[in-house]
């Protein structure tokens, strides 16, 4: 209330010269002048917080609008009480409001060259459990800064891909199918055959099924690097071991 009184007073004072100018230029001053005059005077003694709609209906709207826009822009920033200013940094006090809006990453928050690289050894690990953990890290769902539309995840290197394990009879019974597009063009392979032919494809197929399908999913898939032996060409990235919390991922055989 205290804030509106000076605002209304300044608005009414600011409008007086305009009213006189408009009254002199408008063709029928008899009806216009008393109305504006009355509204202007009623602001002083009443001191009621009238909404700005009643004020803006007057002919001197252009003059009023610029004032209000400046006030709105200033009001949009968060005002920090003086006794709490020590808790906030300069950029936070004068900058945009970060506490009432959900955070969305800027370009500087997901630079590819600054992402973490993880490495995991696939020897005797259960295929699906390993692929699930990898997909979580690639997508970025382990981070509090997770955003579904932005690639916030990490890179993952998988080595010893030919030694990945499956339980039960899947080694001879799990089928990998692909179709060339032509009639009768279905090709079927068992897990064993594919492992002998192209072992990397097993882990890639599993992880690709767990990543989102779409443009972003395809770029996420390129962050997975699978290799057959224990060597990989990414020594310069200094990959850290992938933290795995799943207790049943290690096959005992």
């Amino acid at each position, binding site marked *: 209330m205290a804030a509106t009184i000076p605002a209304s007073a300044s608005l009414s004072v600011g409008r007086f010269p305009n009213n006189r100018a408009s009254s002199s230029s408008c063709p029928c001053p008899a009806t216009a002048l008393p109305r504006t005059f009355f509204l202007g005077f009623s602001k002083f003694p009443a001191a009621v917080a009238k909404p700005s709609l009643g004020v803006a209906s007057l002919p001197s709207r252009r003059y009023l609008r610029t004032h209000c826009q400046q006030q709105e822009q200033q009001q949009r920033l968060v005002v920090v009480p003086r006794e709490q200013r020590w808790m906030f940094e300069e950029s936070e006090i004068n900058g945009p409001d*970060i506490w009432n809006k*959900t955070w969305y990453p800027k370009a500087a928050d997901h630079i590819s060259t600054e992402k973490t690289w993880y490495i995991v050894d696939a020897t005797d690990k259960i295929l699906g459990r390993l692929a699930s953990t990898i997909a979580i890290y690639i997508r970025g*769902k*382990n981070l*509090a*800064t997770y955003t579904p539309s932005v690639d916030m995840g990490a890179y993952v290197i998988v080595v010893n891909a030919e030694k990945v394990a499956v339980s039960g009879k899947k080694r001879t019974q799990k089928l990998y199918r692909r179709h060339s597009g032509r009639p009768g063009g279905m090709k079927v392979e068992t897990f064993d055959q594919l492992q002998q032919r192209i072992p990397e494809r097993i882990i890639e197929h599993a992880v690709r099924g767990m990543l989102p399908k779409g443009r972003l999913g395809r770029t996420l898939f390129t962050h997975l690097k699978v290799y057959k032996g224990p060597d990989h060409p990414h020594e310069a990235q200094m990959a850290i071991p992938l933290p795995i*919390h799943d207790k049943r991922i290690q096959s005992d055989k």
Partner: protein
Amino acid sequence: MNKDKIFKLAKGFRGRAKNCIRIARERVEKALQYSYRDRRNKKRDMRSLWIERINAGTRLHGVNYGNFMHGLMKENIQLNRKVLSELSIHEPYSFKGLVDISRNAFPGNKLAVKDGSSIAV
């Protein structure tokens, strides 16, 4: 609505939908229907995004979202999910304090094996 209004709303549409009135009218009607529906969906989507972020933030400390919220409810901490997700991003130490409060109130799952996963990645 006359054609000018339709074309004004059809800016940025693909192909003939931004230029030809018959197609644009259909697409604009659909777009308005979608925007009506999505103003309601946006509230749901934002809440699920906050929950996902809180889940990720608490799992870094070994607690999952369900047990964390249960502990907060027990302690009668009425912070909403929006604020909690912002805390987990911008104020990690305060968030860890909240996770500890929740863990004391409701032990829930105890992770025996905790590998070295850092708080701020």
